[in-house]
């Protein structure tokens, strides 16, 4: 019996090891070919380590392909989006969950509908609206839609978090004579910090990686985010695998960095996001 369990353990361990390689090896391979020159890639050394480490690919990606500009745009768009989503989700969740007024439930339903809508359906009308407002090819043309599709989830996460916290602190503050804005800023905001962290991570992943809006709303070089930028880089560099690889690695590094720092939190956030309904 004990023998049997031992063998089972070894087999499952081997299987998990095998699948770990399946999950990670493609990314490792990407890192490898981003450091090779074309002679190696197209000359038989496809899978192995680079013989000559070609860091120039990265320099070329930065200088000629302007990956640094794309990176900057992505950082700007993503961080403003996160900031606005956090502000709007926390204020709206406070009003929906803690304040007293008629129509709260209906309002909550309207907001949650936003979570079910596939973003594709809004693509064309949004394109027309942004065009008429002259917001195509601007940062706001991306930030506003990202915010809109980020807040329903944000509100959902914050209200459910808030509903699990007793109201005593607020009541005490009210008795002490605090106004509504002070209660929000001094009591509620610090309390919902964990929910806001979850929202930030969730919003980061979805807006950093978003492709369809970015491809449709942005065509000017100077406003391209990483996803669009890399798509056009691929178009221009078809045969330069090394440079493309370098671009892909640069686009991935910030995410991996955040993940290494906060892996538990990131996993938890995305799972919370899925188990929303």
């Amino acid at each position, binding site marked *: 019996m004990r023998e049997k369990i031992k063998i089972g353990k070894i087999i499952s361990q081997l299987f998990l090891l095998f699948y770990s390689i399946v999950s990670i090896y493609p990314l490792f391979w990407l890192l490898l070919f981003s450091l090779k020159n074309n002679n190696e890639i197209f000359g038989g050394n496809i899978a192995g380590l680079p013989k000559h480490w070609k860091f120039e690919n990265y320099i070329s990606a930065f200088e000629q392909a302007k990956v640094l500009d794309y990176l900057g745009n992505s950082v700007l768009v993503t961080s403003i989006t996160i900031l606005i989503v956090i502000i709007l989700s926390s204020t709206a969740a406070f009003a929906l969950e803690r304040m007293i*007024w008629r129509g709260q439930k209906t309002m909550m339903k309207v907001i949650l509908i936003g979570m079910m809508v*596939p973003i594709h359906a*809004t693509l064309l009308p949004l394109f027309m609206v942004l065009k008429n407002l002259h917001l195509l090819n601007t940062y706001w043309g991306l930030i506003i839609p990202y915010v*809109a599709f980020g807040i329903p989830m944000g509100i959902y996460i914050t209200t459910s978090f808030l509903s699990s916290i007793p109201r005593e602190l607020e009541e005490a503050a009210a008795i002490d004579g605090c106004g509504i804005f002070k209660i929000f800023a001094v009591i509620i905001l610090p309390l919902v910090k964990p929910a806001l962290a979850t929202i930030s991570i969730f919003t980061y992943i979805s807006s950093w990686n978003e492709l369809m809006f970015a491809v449709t709303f942005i065509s000017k070089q100077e406003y391209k985010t990483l996803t669009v930028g890399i798509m056009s880089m691929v178009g221009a560099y078809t045969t330069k695998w090394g440079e493309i690889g370098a671009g892909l690695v640069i686009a991935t590094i910030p995410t991996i960095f955040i993940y290494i720092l906060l892996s538990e939190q990131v*996993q938890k956030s*995305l799972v919370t996001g899925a188990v929303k309904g």
Partner: protein
Amino acid sequence: MKKILSDKRAIVLFLLPTLLVILLIIIIPILISFYYSLLNWDGIGKGTFIGIKNYVSMLQDERLFNAIKNSLIFAGLSLFIQLPFCLFLAILVANGVKGEKVYRTLFFIPVIISTVVIGQLWQKIYNTDYGLLNEFLQKLGLSFLKQDWLGQETTALLCSFIPILWQYVGYHMLIMYAGIKGISEEVNEAAMIDGATKGQLAIYITVPMLKPILKVCATFSLIGALKVFDLIYVLTGGGPFYSTEVPSIYMYTTIFDAFHYGYGSAVSIFIILECFVFTILLNLLFKSRREEA
């Protein structure tokens, strides 16, 4: 207290921006989309109102049917192959193997990486002349299997779905893993005392108790499959010969490449309804199963 909390001015201030954004960016565009779907319109000038004609032509549109069929194939693969596999992984990892946390962390990495990166990477894996896949086949002495994976109709569809399935294995696995960890130890211990083996434990205790979580995963992967866009857009753009086209790609090319704004909008309304109907169906299915049990 009550007076402070029913401060109308504060409520408006707290909610108005959110409401405006959701109204202007999500709800009104869908209504506009519906209006566009009743037009014959090429995007230039004003369209002509043609009623439900676009919807009628959808009924005879083979390209649309093909796209729907592809997305259903993908949903099937996801529900019947990916999810059981994820469940299997989750049970293994949650069973107290060494390096539990490491596996969880590793499997999850593809989930957070941009679809553009994943798409470009897999395009290179599938490359006919220099791709990793063909290279492996050659090393294994299986050169006769080498082919243009994404370039021919017979293999393109499956090959464009594999990266998406691969990317999200860690996601579903983690959700299920969290669910398994939520099952109380006592239940497991009681079953073990009654002489259940680990396999029996998984089949008779873990899986039934995991039903609500499995429902979440199933809904998520079904809806995800019906909406899939990014990876196919990057990998094949729907080609060759529409063989990898899915509804959202079809909608996109109809609007932005063929300039059939009206018809494309009808397809987008169809996608919304399709997602809605399938979500309800899945809910009913799980509900009736539970009542039987």
